């Protein structure tokens, strides 16, 4: 097993009696890209500031390579931050901004030059080295902020919503660049974001946070495909949620559940008893409409109330005839029927791909 670079144990922090981070535990290994994901106010930025040293924890420890840094001031931690606002020094050139950390630590001139040059090259900033931050575009400033942090070779790189100030297209580009840089330098990285697609595409692991506590930790695939609770399921991606009841628990680990009046037997290992209320969760792309439905699956009739052509997919909104439930479906165009489409009001039957459903116990 890889050794943890950063080990956070029972970390808590509150401001004015309001608990912001609660008993937080996390181990991050060398080279890992971990994302703290959650809505604003979930404590993710506070957690980052605790790791960087700008705030002091109320209790718990933060270990960096077997050394407790909980009370070490930020300037003595081998951790560097890329701020949301970039916080570039306006009175210094790009070169001086990047060299700042090395100058402070009195790095030898020749080494300083070669390291800064190297980072400038990696971030494609060579031609801008003598510009001032005010003369750069948003994307360029973002690169300078990255370069200024990584040039110090931190043990852990902290990114506080680094792409949120960029427009959508540039953000996509920078995501790719960011990941490439992180992979090349093999820097252990913690990203804070509320953008789920950023988290899914960049991370090795995602920590979904809810009110200062961990809602779920897992790989992007686990988080998306096997959410452990309704909070995570709703926060990541779109999801359809159907109420269901357990009819029978079989010995083989199968369950028979009743969904909107129809029984179906599925293989799911959740801890439940006969009569329990459960939620059946289906991603839009799990749904199948009319012709594509597997023979073993129950069918629900409804009508199309909206259709949206998205280029690669056709998204539809379906209202079921009974139970006043609307479902979001997302179908890919395929070679068999590249021109399929629906008209609004069209009667259809809906079901899903067997085995792709997620079952969660009702938490209320």
């Amino acid at each position, binding site marked *: 097993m890889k050794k943890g670079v950063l080990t956070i144990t029972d970390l808590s922090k509150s401001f004015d009696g309001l608990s912001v981070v609660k008993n937080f535990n996390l181990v991050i290994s060398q080279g890992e890209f971990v994302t703290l994901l959650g809505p604003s106010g979930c404590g993710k930025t506070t957690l980052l500031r605790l790791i*960087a*040293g*700008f705030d002091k924890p109320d209790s718990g420890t933060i270990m960096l390579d077997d050394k407790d840094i909980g009370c070490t*001031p*930020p*300037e*003595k931690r081998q*951790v*560097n*931050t890329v*701020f*949301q*606002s*970039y*916080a*570039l*020094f*306006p*009175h210094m050139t790009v070169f001086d901004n990047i060299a*700042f*950390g090395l100058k*402070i*630590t009195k790095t030898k001139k020749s080494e300083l030059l070669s390291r800064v040059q190297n980072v400038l090259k990696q971030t494609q900033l060579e031609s801008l080295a003598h510009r*001032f931050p005010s003369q750069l575009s948003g994307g360029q400033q973002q690169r300078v902020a990255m370069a*200024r942090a990584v040039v*110090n070779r931190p043990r852990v790189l902290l990114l506080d919503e680094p792409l949120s100030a960029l427009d959508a297209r540039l953000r996509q580009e920078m995501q790719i660049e960011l990941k490439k840089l992180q992979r090349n330098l093999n820097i252990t990285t913690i990203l804070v974001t509320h953008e789920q697609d950023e988290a899914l595409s960049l991370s090795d692991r995602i920590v979904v946070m809810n009110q200062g506590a961990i809602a779920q930790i897992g790989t992007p695939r686990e988080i998306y495909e096997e959410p452990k609770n309704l909070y995570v399921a709703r926060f990541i991606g779109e999801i359809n949620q159907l109420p269901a009841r357990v009819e029978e628990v079989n010995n083989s680990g199968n369950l028979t559940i009743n969904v909107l009046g129809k029984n179906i037997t599925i293989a799911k290992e959740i801890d439940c008893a006969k009569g329990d209320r459960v939620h059946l969760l289906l991603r839009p792309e799990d749904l199948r409409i009319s012709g594509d439905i597997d023979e073993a699956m129950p069918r629900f009739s409804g009508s199309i109330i909206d259709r949206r052509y998205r280029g690669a997919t056709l998204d539809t909104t379906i209202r079921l005839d009974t139970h006043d439930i609307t479902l979001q479906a997302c179908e890919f165009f395929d070679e068999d029927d590249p021109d399929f489409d629906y008209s609004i009001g069209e009667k259809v039957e809906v079901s899903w791909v067997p085995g792709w459903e997620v079952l969660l116990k009702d938490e209320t």
Partner: protein
Amino acid sequence: MKPFRIIYLAIVFLYLYIPLAVMVANSFNVNKYGMRWDGFTLQWFSAMLQNHSLMEATRNSLLVAISSATVATVLGGLGATCIYLYRFRGRKVMQVTLLTIMMIPDIILAIGLLVLFVITGVSLGFWSLLLAHVTFCLPFVTVTVLARLQGFDPNLIDAAKDLGASESQTTRHIVIPLLKPALLASWLLSFTLSLDDVIVSSFVTGPSFDVLPLKLFSMVKVGVKPEVNALSTLFVGISVVLILICHYLTKENKR
């Protein structure tokens, strides 16, 4: 449109600078009373240099202005940084009281200071003037520096620390360079405020320590002497040079 624009501009400039121009012209005018141009001369400048009491008042004034501007800039700069960086009890009170000093009429401040100096036994002269001038310059410095600080990205100081800079390194490499234009502007503002203050100075200075505005005030009671014009012209020249230096320094900084 173009001639109109030029005329308009000319009127604005005339309105602003005719009084100064008359004075500057008279300082080179042979005619002692300045009612008409009788030819060019530099005699008033040499007369000015030979007027010992006038020269002494000028020296005193410059000394007070330079010292009080320096003290006020240092104290005000520290005060503003303190108000900006730290959250302490009495922070709001400090901000409001500074503004109050800025707003109250000079005469009231002057009476207050005089009473204070008499009670505490501070002898009226250089030190009482210095204390008084620092008092009324301080709020202007604080407000100027604070405005500049509030214009910064609040993460700049955290960023410097994050990159390994200690408190003193952050101050030296980040805070002071960024505050330089504001500190310079504050110093010049304080210098000017101190140099042309009449009301407060007239209350808190003693007979042995004459300052320029008071000296001029007493000299012009019996008509404007040409050496006063000469001295004023000199000051206009110094002001222009200072403004040019200031402009150059802040431009360098922005680039």
